[in-house]
């Protein structure tokens, strides 16, 4: 059957059916661009089918290999090194390492070089691994196969990368074009083919491309054997919608237009195969030219971290200056007299005669010495932690989509913590919020509404009301009235058990929940794809007994005949599948099939239906002669077919937007208008897309008369053609008789309204950017509860006259005027706390984003609850994103699935791609890819929140611990006459960041959870901590710096005070430099590790092992280091075993100093928790006391209290529904 219909379909000449776009008279006069060929910019010459000619210059073009890698084997080392040393900190350490070879350095060279090599090495390894992944991805694309012509009329598989310009290839249905092609011929007789350009511009409707008449004949493989032609065309450029060129074939020259060009990464649809010639390949293709190098993004925290590093640098310079000045002073005044130094021998570092030189040298030495202030391992630790975080995000089973078998993928690990700070979400519609799949949901025929089971909003509302009822102890008798009120919900088909579950007040909440999930599942997963409709009145055959069965028959006929679809194949149950230009039509065709009006086949002029005859109740096959097809266009907003049935009766069947059709009704055709209108508004409220069906019976004479006018218009050549066609159709599409309306649902992705609801509660704002038309966008706005009926909608669009005038100034004035009036309205109504929504048209947006209007526009827009931009081009999406970012300074997240979202995804602070769909462009450009939109909730609220807290805590702790160590060195300098002597052994310090303190902070960065993931989701308000950035504010940063300053002072002075000058052991031994160093260092290690134990609020065994293990490792290190021969261990030789270990004072000092140095922080923490607790503190405490289990009411109350009232989202709709129901209840009582 499939084979059969395929061939049949191939014979169709679409140009005969279509009135507006097809069968354009070919323009014969040579256009002025012809002269341009051969000139610069138009120099490309392609020898079709002779790709060997392109092997030599000047016609040598790049092959079809595409590379997105950053490095290759040769460039990796220099490039990656350059990248590494662009970081100030790394550059500093490079200089320090270079200086370490000189006598300037206070440490030995290895201890300076080794950490740097380690740190840079790890970062470079990460780069290499990432680039390798990119390479593998490229390889995957490059090695796809396509059928290419070999020269003797046969086609063999060839890899994409080996395609050359001039190759003739054959692309089959649902395959991607490997490069930019010139269409030679297609499986259709008239060389038409359909292309889906979703990856290029995100538009989901199919586009028709048409080959030249001249190449029509090349549709068989043997024909191509001897085919040669030359194409002269423009040079490669990024413009997707233009193409200039001509084809020299058979000694004739034919002009080429974009209609003949098939672009790489678009997909062949509805067409069995095409033949094409490669004109642009690889890097020359338009889509590659269009792709911008994805900018490397850095998170806000990381940018702020740079400032912290600068602050530390200035601290470093400051204390180095102090040291240098101190040194110069001491050298000049006192040191001369220190005979034991023998300064007269001449030492540039301490030269009393040249104190400034000494001071300067000491300054440099101090810069290296205090380098411990700069956390060298911070970058590498953060990178490591982020990679681990990303791994955990990827592994989260809660974000695994079983349908597509894909899970969340953090493609760059740079932005994990940024996820916790997002304030604006810019979302694409198709494929992101919606599945790009239409489902037939409801219809209103002859004034009666059919279909429509319970939706989630109704359920949630009824559940809440029930809960309320129960709470207020309604008597059982009164619950009758409640039941009545629910009958008004039009539970027309809801099965009884659902009603029971929803109404049975006695059942507990758990039961309700499970019941609900069952319902929503049953509702979601319709057995038939595209048909989610339950109403026995229609799906059974009982409707044929109703009084108005004629209208119903007509309704179904319109549904089955007024379209451009084709049946393609039959499944096992005998049901047909359809293909059409828009998914809506497919939904209608499937629905009409279900209702008993099966569209069987289409030939050039006949459409065959198998329809239910209401008079007999049997199915009969009927043929309709298709006379004319007035196709859909966005300006007409309607589509009509003119058909004649077996009896010769001629009908005009029309479907279209309500605003258009209702105006064109006959006075006698308005009998159902009122009922239909009210149904229409009901449907629209549920976010359904509605179409109104109408028909008209034509007299033969009238038709003949009109047809002649129409045919004349159709064959007109010239610019007036469209106008003539338009007016011709106006003439016939009038005096219609209304049949009813049908509502299809642009099926939302799973969990979208709930997700938006949660995100709104977390304080996120939502902007919807879509290429779709306004009506669709608004529909979706309602469906995913971005719009509500209590919202005041502002529609910003250009008026017709202004738009036509095409004068920028006038447009500006118009927009400004509108914005002003909206702002005025807003300030008037602000007091009433009414929510506002802004809906912007693409044209208007273009004006509104101009620099002088922009501020007004954003001023209005940020005050609106939700903003919907429709008819937005990919460029504009990126522009809006950039402007929103710049204007609000907030962190934006862009989410989309198609190539049209790439710009926006790259522009936003965080780009998220939906990976469930076929196209990969968005995913490739994104920072995170999700298989489902609703995973965004968990990604942001749980992982974002965690990562934000982890990274900020981690950085602050890093700063603290390095200041702590660095400053003890500085304070000690004061005791050594600024001579640059170091208290600790070199190796102690090298291992400080590498071993002794690194693992706990990494475990903090990877595993810390302030609250569990469930709580994160229960209290979305916690997310606002990230938005307000309270965990990485300057107050906190300074606080931690001060903590480090104070703690280091405490540690060093207390040690000195306790250990000198008297003996520290029973035997009377005094502590020398080695002992004091080791004891002080012990205190440092204990303090920093205990400090992190205070920061961490979530201890698994890993944290325990790391923290206490780090402390233990210090003693082990001392033991091992001390056991080495003295030539290696020098001062540390036998230190622990012989000297400090047996001394009780050593252990007592450690205990005292650690407690004292942690006390300030503990007291701060206690005061904060007791008197100024933050949300997470409260929740932690409640969790700790198991309030969530013991006192559920309190737990839920807290949850509700923490919720900010939002005007968008699911819960807002539930609120609205409840208030409506209550009103109705009151009404009824009264």
């Amino acid at each position: 059957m499939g084979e059969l219909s395929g061939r049949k379909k191939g014979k169709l000449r679409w140009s005969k059916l279509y009135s507006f776009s097809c069968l354009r008279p070919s323009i014969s006069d040579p256009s002025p661009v012809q002269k341009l060929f051969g000139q610069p910019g138009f120099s490309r010459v392609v020898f079709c089918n002779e790709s060997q000619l392109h092997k030599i210059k000047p016609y040598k073009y790049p092959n079809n290999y595409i590379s997105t890698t950053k490095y290759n084997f040769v460039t990796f080392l220099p490039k990656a090194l350059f990248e590494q040393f662009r970081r100030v900190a790394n550059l500093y350490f490079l200089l320090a390492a270079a200086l370490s070879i000189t006598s300037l350095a206070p440490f030995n060279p290895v201890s300076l070089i080794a950490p740097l090599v380690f740190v840079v090495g790890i970062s470079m390894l990460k780069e290499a691994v990432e680039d390798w992944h990119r390479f593998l991805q490229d390889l995957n694309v490059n090695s796809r196969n396509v059928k290419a012509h070999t020269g003797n009329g046969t086609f063999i598989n060839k890899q994409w990368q080996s395609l050359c310009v001039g190759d003739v290839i054959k692309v089959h249905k649902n395959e991607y074009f490997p490069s930019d092609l010139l269409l030679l011929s297609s499986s259709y007789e008239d060389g038409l083919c359909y292309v889906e350009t979703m990856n290029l511009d995100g538009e989901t409707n199919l586009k028709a491309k048409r080959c030249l008449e001249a190449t029509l004949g090349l549709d068989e493989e043997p024909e191509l054997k001897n085919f040669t032609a030359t194409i002269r065309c423009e040079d490669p450029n990024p413009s997707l919608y233009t193409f200039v060129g001509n084809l020299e074939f058979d000694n004739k020259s034919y002009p080429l237009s974009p209609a003949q060009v098939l672009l790489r990464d678009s997909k062949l649809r509805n067409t069995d195969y095409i033949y094409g010639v490669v004109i642009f390949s690889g890097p020359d293709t338009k889509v590659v030219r269009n792709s911008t190098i994805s900018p490397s993004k850095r998170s806000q925290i990381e940018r702020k971290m740079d400032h912290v590093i600068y602050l530390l640098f200035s601290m470093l310079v400051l204390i180095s200056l102090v040291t240098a000045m101190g040194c110069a002073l001491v050298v000049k005044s006192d040191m001369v007299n220190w005979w034991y130094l023998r300064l007269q021998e001449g030492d540039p570092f301490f030269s009393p005669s040249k104190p400034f030189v000494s001071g300067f040298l000491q300054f440099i030495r101090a810069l290296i010495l205090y380098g411990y202030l700069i956390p060298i391992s911070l970058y590498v630790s953060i990178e490591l932690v982020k990679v681990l975080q990303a791994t955990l995000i990827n592994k989260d089973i809660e974000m695994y989509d079983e349908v597509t078998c894909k899970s969340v993928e953090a493609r760059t690990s740079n932005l994990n913590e940024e996820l916790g700070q997002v304030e604006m979400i810019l979302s694409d519609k198709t494929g992101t919020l919606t599945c790009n799949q239409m489902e037939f949901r409801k219809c209103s025929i002859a004034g009666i509404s059919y279909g429509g089971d319970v939706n989630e909003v109704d359920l949630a509302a009824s559940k809440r009301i029930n809960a309320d009822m129960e709470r207020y102890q309604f008597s059982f008798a009164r619950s009758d009235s409640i039941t009545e009120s629910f009958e008004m919900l039009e539970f027309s088909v809801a099965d009884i058990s659902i009603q029971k579950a929803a109404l049975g007040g006695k059942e507990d909440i758990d039961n309700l929940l499970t019941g609900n999930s069952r319902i929503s599942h049953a509702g979601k997963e319709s057995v038939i794809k595209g048909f989610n409709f339950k109403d026995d009145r229609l799906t059974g055959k009982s409707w044929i007994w109703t009084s108005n069965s004629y209208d119903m028959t007509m309704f179904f006929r319109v549904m089955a005949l007024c379209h451009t679809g084709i049946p393609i194949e039959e499944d096992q149950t005998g049901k047909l599948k359809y293909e059409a230009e828009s998914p809506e039509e497919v939904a209608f065709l499937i629905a009409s099939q279900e209702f008993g009006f099966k569209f069987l086949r289409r030939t050039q002029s006949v459409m065959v239906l198998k329809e239910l005859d209401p008079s007999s109740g049997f199915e009969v096959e009927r043929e309709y002669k298709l006379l004319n097809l007035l196709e859909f266009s966005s300006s007409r907003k309607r589509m009509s077919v003119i058909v004649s049935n077996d009896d010769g009766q001629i009908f005009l069947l029309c479907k279209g937007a309500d605003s258009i059709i209702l105006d064109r009704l006959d006075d006698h055709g308005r009998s159902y208008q009122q009922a239909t209108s009210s149904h229409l508004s009901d449907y629209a409220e549920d976010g359904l897309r509605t179409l109104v069906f109408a028909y008209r019976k034509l007299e033969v004479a009238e038709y003949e008369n009109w047809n002649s006018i129409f045919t004349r218009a159709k064959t007109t050549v010239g610019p007036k053609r469209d106008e003539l066609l338009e007016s011709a159709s106006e003439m016939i599409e009038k005096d219609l008789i209304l049949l009813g309306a049908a509502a299809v649902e642009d099926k939302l992705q799973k969990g979208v309204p709930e997700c938006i609801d949660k995100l709104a509660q977390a304080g996120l704002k939502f902007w919807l950017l879509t290429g779709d038309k306004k009506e669709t966008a608004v529909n979706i706005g309602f469906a995913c509860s971005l719009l509500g009926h209590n919202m005041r909608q502002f529609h910003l669009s250009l008026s017709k006259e202004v738009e036509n005038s095409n004068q920028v100034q006038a447009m500006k004035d118009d927009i400004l005027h509108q914005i002003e009036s909206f702002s005025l309205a807003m300030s008037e109504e602000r007091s009433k706390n009414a929510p506002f929504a802004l809906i912007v048209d693409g044209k208007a947006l273009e004006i509104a984003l101009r620099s002088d209007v922009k501020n007004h526009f954003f001023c209005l827009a940020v005050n609106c609850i939700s903003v919907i931009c429709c008819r937005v081009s990919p460029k504009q999406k990126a522009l809006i994103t950039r402007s929103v970012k710049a204007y609000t300074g907030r962190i934006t997240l862009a989410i989309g699935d198609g190539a049209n979202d790439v710009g926006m995804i790259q522009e936003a602070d965080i780009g998220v791609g939906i990976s469930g769909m076929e196209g990969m462009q968005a995913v490739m450009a994104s920072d995170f890819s999700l298989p489902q939109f609703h995973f965004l909730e968990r990604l942001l609220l749980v992982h974002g929140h965690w990562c934000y807290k982890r990274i900020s805590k981690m950085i602050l702790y890093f700063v603290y611990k390095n200041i702590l160590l660095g400053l003890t060195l500085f304070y000690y300098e004061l005791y050594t006459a600024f001579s640059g002597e170091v208290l600790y052994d070199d190796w102690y310090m090298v291992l400080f960041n590498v071993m002794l303190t690194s693992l706990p902070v990494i475990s903090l960065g990877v595993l810390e959870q302030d609250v569990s993931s469930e709580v994160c989701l229960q209290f979305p308000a916690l997310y606002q901590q990230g938005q307000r950035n309270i965990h990485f504010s300057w107050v906190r940063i300074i606080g931690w710096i001060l903590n480090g300053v104070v703690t280091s002072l405490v540690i060093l002075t207390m040690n000195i005070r306790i250990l000198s000058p008297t003996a520290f052991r029973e035997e009377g031994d005094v502590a020398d430099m080695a002992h004091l160093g080791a004891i002080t260092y012990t205190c440092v290690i204990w303090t920093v590790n205990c400090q992190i134990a205070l920061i961490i609020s979530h201890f698994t065994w890993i944290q325990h092992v790391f923290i206490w293990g780090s402390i233990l490792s210090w003693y082990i290190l001392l033991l091992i280091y001390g056991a080495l021969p003295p030539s290696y261990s020098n001062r540390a030789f036998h230190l622990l075993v012989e000297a400090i270990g047996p001394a009780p004072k050593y252990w007592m000092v450690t205990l005292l100093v650690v407690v004292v140095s942690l006390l300030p922080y503990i007291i701060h923490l206690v005061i904060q928790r007791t008197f100024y607790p933050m949300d997470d503190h409260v929740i932690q405490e409640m969790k700790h006391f198991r309030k969530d289990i013991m006192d559920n009411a309190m737990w839920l109350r807290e949850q509700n209290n923490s919720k900010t009232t939002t005007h968008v989202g699911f819960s807002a709709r539930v609120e609205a529904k409840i208030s409506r129901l209550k009103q109705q209840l009151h009404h009824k009582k009264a």
Partner: protein
Amino acid sequence: MDADGGSASAVGIEGRPVSLHSGQPRALYQFTQQSLPACKPVLTPGWVIATFLLIGAIFIPVGLVSLHASQNVVEIVERYDAECIPEKYQSNKVAYIRDSSIPKNCTRYLKVHKHMKAPISVYYQLDNFYQNHRRYVKSRSDQQLLHGLKYNDTSSCKPEQLNNGLPIVPCGLIAWSLFNDTFNFVRRSEEMKINRKNIAWKSDRDHKFGKEVYPFNFQNGTLIGGGKLDPRIPLSDQEDLIVWMRTAALPSFRKLYGRIEEDIDADDVIVVHLSNNYNTYSFGGKKKLVLSTSSWLGGKNNFLGIAYIFVGSSCIFTSIVFMLLHVKNPR
């Protein structure tokens, strides 16, 4: 302060099914799902009060014990650098100390107020002497100290590395500036024995200073720093040198001179015959002689005990304040 809340809530156990089919161990699964069992200590008022009370309860006794130990130590400190200069040289101390022809003998009387139990450590204390100066600290060769003349590279010893073209053993500024005051103690006209052995760390004697290394060419130059060494005694037995070579961490330091291994009664007067050779006058340093007994905590230093008591009592105070606050307005 790592008081666990004790609520080791095993999050991963309930609810989520552990994917057994994939064969990954349970712990790994819990790790990747971030649901490892964890204890989540929370600083609740109860814990705060208890913790502070606990710290106080531990610290105050510890403080009292260590303060007591420190108080029991008897310490006699005698500054002698100024007094040991004859009247006529008072105005020019440096000239006096540099003039080797003048005898530097000096006698001091130490009054003992409290019974001193053996062993009594004898220290000399130098103030304002920067043994921790970088130039000074680096000017030594550990290899040479261990291997003697066999080890040739003494560049680190600059500027005291060669004399008359011959290497110096021990080289470097530290050894060169060896402290050379000597002390003799007489009690009731009977000389007290000072044990000058075992004053250096055993590890130094055994592993850092060569048993076969003898001083060579030491203090032979034009510039004489401090003390001289007996060239017949190997470095490993020159304990004065070993002690001196252990550079002090701070500009004011004590070094062990020897131990008196007999008790000294209260009100005894000890006559100290000392030779005041070491030059601290040019840089205004002080020289002190210290006699001290020791406790299990070492020498006399009240700071540790006082600090413990102070921290302990402040913790108790804080905990009481929090307790009152908590009683007044509980959560």
